[in-house]
């Protein structure tokens, strides 16, 4: 039995400890915004926040996550869209959209740490795969977010 805190709610999950977090989120809790892409932490479609840090949930055994705070795309904002999500709309970033949950989670974690990343820092931090090739717009959206004044 694993006690998981996902998007603020506690779930008692009765699965094998080695079950990857991704499948617990999708198939036990029923949150499908987090995607399966590769299963070997290559593509980042499954990125969630674990204690605020972007992690690839397809290779993280759920048994290691007792008491961790997990955030998925569904829990990124409690009211409306975050600045990152809004920038994704303003810059018309997604095409098929399948990788974008993971992309937005990875970018949100990066910007929380470093609000104004250089292109090099961005490229080093964001290794998620987008087959549609939305990267030029991701760059533009992040530049706009970095220069935003709130």
């Amino acid at each position, binding site marked *: 039995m694993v006690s998981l805190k996902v998007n603020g709610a506690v779930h008692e999950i009765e*699965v*094998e400890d080695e*079950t*990857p977090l991704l*499948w617990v989120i*999708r*198939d*036990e809790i*029923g*949150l*499908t*915004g*987090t*995607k*399966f*892409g*590769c*299963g*070997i932490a*290559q*593509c980042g*479609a499954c990125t969630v926040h674990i204690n605020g840090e972007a992690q690839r949930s397809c290779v993280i055994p759920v048994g290691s996550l007792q008491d961790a705070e997990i955030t*998925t*795309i*569904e829990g*990124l904002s409690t009211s409306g*869209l975050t600045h990152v*999500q809004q920038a*994704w*709309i303003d810059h*018309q*970033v*997604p*095409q*098929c*959209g*399948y*990788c*974008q*949950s993971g992309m*937005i989670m990875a970018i949100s974690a990066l910007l929380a740490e470093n609000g104004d990343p250089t292109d090099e820092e*961005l*490229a*080093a931090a*964001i*290794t*998620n*795969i*987008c*087959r*549609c*090739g*939305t*990267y*030029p*717009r*991701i*760059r533009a959206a992040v530049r706009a977010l970095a220069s935003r004044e709130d």
Partner: protein
Amino acid sequence: MPTRRTIVLGTFGAAGALVVGYAFWPSSRIRRANAMDAAKDERFVSNWIKIANDDTVTVVIPHCDMGTGIFTSLSQMAAEELDADWNKVTAETAPSDPLFANGALAEGFILSQQDMSGRDIPPFLRGTVANGFRMVAEYMDLQVTGGSSAVRATGMFGMRLAGAAAREMLLKAAARRWDVDVASCETRSSRVIHKATQREFTYGELAGAASDYEPPTHPRLKDKSEFRLIGRPLQRIDIPGKVDGSTNYGIDVIQPDMLYAAIRISPVFGGKLKSVDTRIVEGRRGIRQVVKLDDAVVVVADRYWRAKAAAADLDPQFDGGGHDKVTSASIAARRLEAVRGRDAKIDLTRGEGIDALARGTSFAATYSVPYLAHSPMEPMNATALYKDGMLEVWSGTQDGLGSRAFCAKAAKLSLDKVAFHLQPMGGGFGRRLPGQWNFLEYAVRTALAVPGVPVKLIFTREQDTQHDYYRPNVTSAFWGSLGPEGLVRTWVNTYTTDDGANPQAHIPYDIPNQQIGSVKVATHVPTGPWRSVEASWHGFFVESFVDELAHRGGQDPFEYRRALLRHAPRHLAVLELAAQKAGWGAPMARGRGRGIAIVESFKTIVAQVAEVTIDAKGALKVDRVVAAVDTGLVVNPDGLKAQIEGAIFFALTAALKGEITIDQGAVAQSNFNDYEMLRLADCPEIEVHLCESDGEVGGAGEPGVPPLAPAVTNAIFAACGVRVRNLPIKNHSLAPSASVTTSE
């Protein structure tokens, strides 16, 4: 005498006016559409267009959403002619039912066909009918999304006319209520207005009465100058659901009491299951059943993770299907032998053809491209339920109606016993087109073996990579001869093909003597359309050889192409715009280079200039790609730019890294660790410039792909003198010591 086809299907005049009638839905069909797909407070007014009492206009789209933005651009086209308030327009996927078959798609292509023989069927439609497309009726049973067809066929031949017809019906209904002349009424922003008396009705108030009229067969289409929505960079309507995780892709389908399935398919294509010891997984927690199919084993469990882990632990034994000695090298050797032999089927001869080769300085070169997987981010999957003799299937495919028919056939059921629910797709790129539905077939066969309960089958990424229908590997040999001024006088080309001649091998260049032919090389490796289909290889071959000829002739590659395109003003304008925006001719530092290429595909002309840097160790960086695009009418300029940007990156991944190899009859690559993808760090600066023209409306999704590879390899040659003739580029050393003239 006009043929029957031109009478029935009509054509557009130069100004875009409909010359002959369009097949509108009669009122009987509208009634059936209402019964199937309209809520209580809405109704179809004409094809594809529902209007609700609260003025909401719903455009019903006979395509799927795979990320290209067509739900928005097609709605824009319908709303334009309808004069609808864009804020009250929504779109939804058409039911997978023959009632909603996309006649416009068929008409759009029939109009562009010279004859109806199977040979001229556009490749993305080839899998749709087993017996080669001889009947117009067969054309009509389509909901295919591919061939960059949505805007240029469905939009131009369907949505605009449907919108225009509905508008005229609304006008008629208002005029009748007011008892005034229709000509005294006008439409604006979802209202009909009678200016003289300052009265107005909203569309919602009129929709019921309007839908009682038969749709006009010759509705007036707007002139370009009247457009208010077409041509505007409107925001895509599908994007909000893609930033908060709410878009429900095929893989996200949840049904009550659903089980999950993981599969192991014979690694060698065509191999059959010999045996599998299932005891190792039987009795494990959650494992419900191991289904043995003739060429695969499927593990069904209560959770996907349990099914996946159990499938991985099985050790199924498959035979080699007679192909287990085949390798990439053996296939390449056969291709090379074929293009150098004398068995080519000649597809085009111009002037003196090959006989002119002997005159002038001749030059030969041979190129090749490898197999490529599509690898959309959402792995192949389908959910199927077989219960009480009925089959219900949920999946993302590029043809909902075709998928329904396919599933019916796979289950040996009649169409009315099968329901298909088309879901948005996490990428397609051709992978989910008809003819490539192994995932549907396996899901249906699994559901039949586990009746009464829905089963979601998901390919692992490894199964997805190893059981695709690959972009063919192709070899193409060229012979050219130059006249005294360095310009090419003779062009001879023989290429290998899986399935017949490729019109895309024909060149836009004004070369007096030409011979182009193909030679068939069949293998056991399944192939299929991959974003831009045959243009993805012929674009590379043709634009590489032209570049080599330019250098042989001692001329600038841009000026050389200009000279050969003097007769083609649209090509010339696109080429010149790309060169100008890229700063063609400006000096570059040592180790840097520029390359140019131009390809027309799907009626859209795209030129690209790539800039590369090669460092002292031979490491390549693609710094910048500048594209110019002529797609005729531009419906949504931002959407078009996004498609070209994405296509450039998709093509760059393939050019630099993409290679599926065959070893012992099976695919050697498995996941993104060995079938590598470019990422953000590899993305060049990309600029897209549009040059709108009065040309025929072209596609958007695919034409950005073909010029990229040759633009980059031509830039590599300019930078370091290495001529890359065989993709991918990663297999070539670009270090200074390797600077010979070619790299085979």
